[in-house]
């Protein structure tokens, strides 16, 4: 378990184990123990009488081990949570093997108490060591297999969840309704006085929506994403007029790099919605991009509005979280996104590993 290569990739929380405290899990363990006992009995008996004897003995022993293990893992839940996958696996494995050793020793002691040394062929003193070693080895193998099984199931479920999440995120990333209605209002206003501007705005809006409806799992060229962002800017400029200035410094960027769609436009949208729109005189947003060879970063800064007496808004975080999730799924190497106030500006920095199309 400890050397599982997948462990290093995304997983930061170690507890992939199911909840052993639940009644359902306890029932499962009882059933599994009985099945194993049945298999043992079937493989060993020669007379019907012996079958029942072996089954009874194996059941008793395995139930003790199974339920004891469940109780231990249940009790150790807090200790397992929050550890790395490796540490949690080692701890859980250790607990299971230790539990088996103790119960084996207890069984030996009980047999000695009830039957004396000579009575039971299976538990003769010279066999005691072998009995213990055999149980511990079987337990180690079965624990390893089980932990591996839990881990893989957990990873699989996590992946399914992440994919579903990213699909939802992609949906949420689609442009704010607020923006749509404001833009339509602007277009309605322009249609009579400045029909050609209105026409251009409709075209830009159409392209923006087309791209936001595209399959979010397909990556696009950085150039396309930047064009989309500029279209968005053009529409907002019509609405906000002199209040909005955007300075672009992105010539350095690798335009053929592949990025998930809508990874930059929402950041400009945020900068406008939380920054410029709240400033009576407007302000300047700066977008800077630098290429570092194996990856590139994009930096978006906007002036902060004077802080309201009670800071209650947190909508900003949703878009950031959303982009973070989609970046995490889009690349093998980690992409990064940092955001926070810096002086009188708010700054978001994206770091994206470079994947170029052929």
């Amino acid at each position, binding site marked *: 378990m400890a050397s599982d290569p997948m462990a290093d990739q995304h997983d930061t929380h170690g507890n992939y184990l199911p909840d052993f405290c639940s009644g359902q899990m306890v029932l499962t363990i009882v059933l599994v123990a009985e099945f194993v006992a049945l298999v043992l009995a079937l493989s060993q008996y020669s007379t019907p009488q012996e079958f029942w004897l072996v089954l009874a003995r194996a059941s008793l022993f395995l139930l003790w081990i199974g339920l004891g293990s469940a109780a231990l893992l249940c009790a150790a839940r807090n200790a397992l949570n929050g550890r790395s996958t490796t540490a949690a696996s080692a701890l859980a494995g250790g607990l299971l093997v230790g539990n088996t050793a103790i119960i084996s020793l207890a069984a030996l002691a009980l047999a000695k108490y009830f039957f004396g040394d000579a009575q039971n062929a299976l538990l003769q003193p010279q066999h005691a060591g072998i009995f213990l070693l055999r149980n511990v080895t079987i337990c180690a193998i079965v624990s390893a297999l089980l932990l591996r099984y839990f881990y893989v199931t957990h990873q699989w479920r996590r992946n399914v969840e992440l994919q579903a999440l990213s699909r939802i995120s992609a949906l949420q990333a689609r442009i704010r309704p*607020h923006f*749509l*209605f404001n833009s339509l209002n602007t277009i*309605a*206003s322009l249609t009579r006085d400045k029909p050609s501007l209105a026409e251009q705005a409709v075209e830009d809006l159409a392209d923006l929506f087309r791209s936001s409806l595209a399959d979010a799992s397909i990556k696009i060229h950085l150039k396309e994403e930047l064009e989309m962002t500029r279209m968005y800017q053009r529409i907002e400029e019509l609405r906000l007029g002199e209040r909005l200035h955007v300075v672009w410094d992105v010539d350095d960027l690798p335009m053929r790099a592949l990025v998930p769609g809508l990874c930059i436009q929402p950041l400009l949208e945020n900068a406008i919605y939380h920054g410029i729109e*709240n*400033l009576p005189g407007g302000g300047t947003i700066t977008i800077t991009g630098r290429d570092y060879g194996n990856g590139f970063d994009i930096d978006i800064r906007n002036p902060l509005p004077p802080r309201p007496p009670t800071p209650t808004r947190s909508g900003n975080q949703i878009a950031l979280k959303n982009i973070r999730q989609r970046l995490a799924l889009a690349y093998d190497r980690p992409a990064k996104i940092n955001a926070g106030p810096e002086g009188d500006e708010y700054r978001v920095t994206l770091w994206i590993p470079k994947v170029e199309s052929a």
Partner: protein
Amino acid sequence: MKLLIVDDEQPARVRMQRLLGDIGNHTVVAEADHGEAALDAVQTHAPDVVLMDIRMPGMGGLEAARHLAQLDQPPAVIFTTAYNEYALEAFDAQAVGYLVKPVRLEKLARALEHAERLSTAQLDAVRDADETPTARTHFSARMGDRLRMIPVEQALYLQADQKYVAVGLPDEEVLIDDSLKSIEAEFGSDVFFRIHRNALVAVAHLRGVEKRRDGTIGALVHGSDKSLDVSRRHAAELRRFIRGG
């Protein structure tokens, strides 16, 4: 009727002007691009109806409407909004209090016919229904038939009398119509901290605590010589707050 258009977006104002032109019978006496400008314009031009955008930089439409409601002869207010202002569902019963953008000519005409004054209670209900209520930027005091606006960050302390609350400023005190309780709820203790049954102090201006000769405690604020009474009950909390912050 005399109308005032309040919107921070120029194209939106242009379109509203044109719609009103198409309806006829109305005069737009002024335009404003944020809440404070709207308050000034209302007092200068005394419009009958204000068409008010909600999301504007600085003072928004909801706050401006709350201040307007304090006037003796407040104008009727019709909110205009693009989307998302769920709080406005509080008005849905009448369906004349607000219009969604892009505004339709017939709806605008109908809203103007039915335009009514909004009561403070209605506006408070809207604020309470808002999921992320933003505290106001100004206190407003009625001075005859005019409003005096006091930026919230200028208030040093708030002291309750029998009927009014006095806002403490460096050289004077101004009476406003709110209760300490509502102010406490609106801004939270990070902005105004309770030091007495009848007083809140502005955290940003708090200078320290003094022990007076008679054993009572006083709170000192920057910009004023006044020592504010701190009740025994709140003294410990205030000390803890000062140490913690």
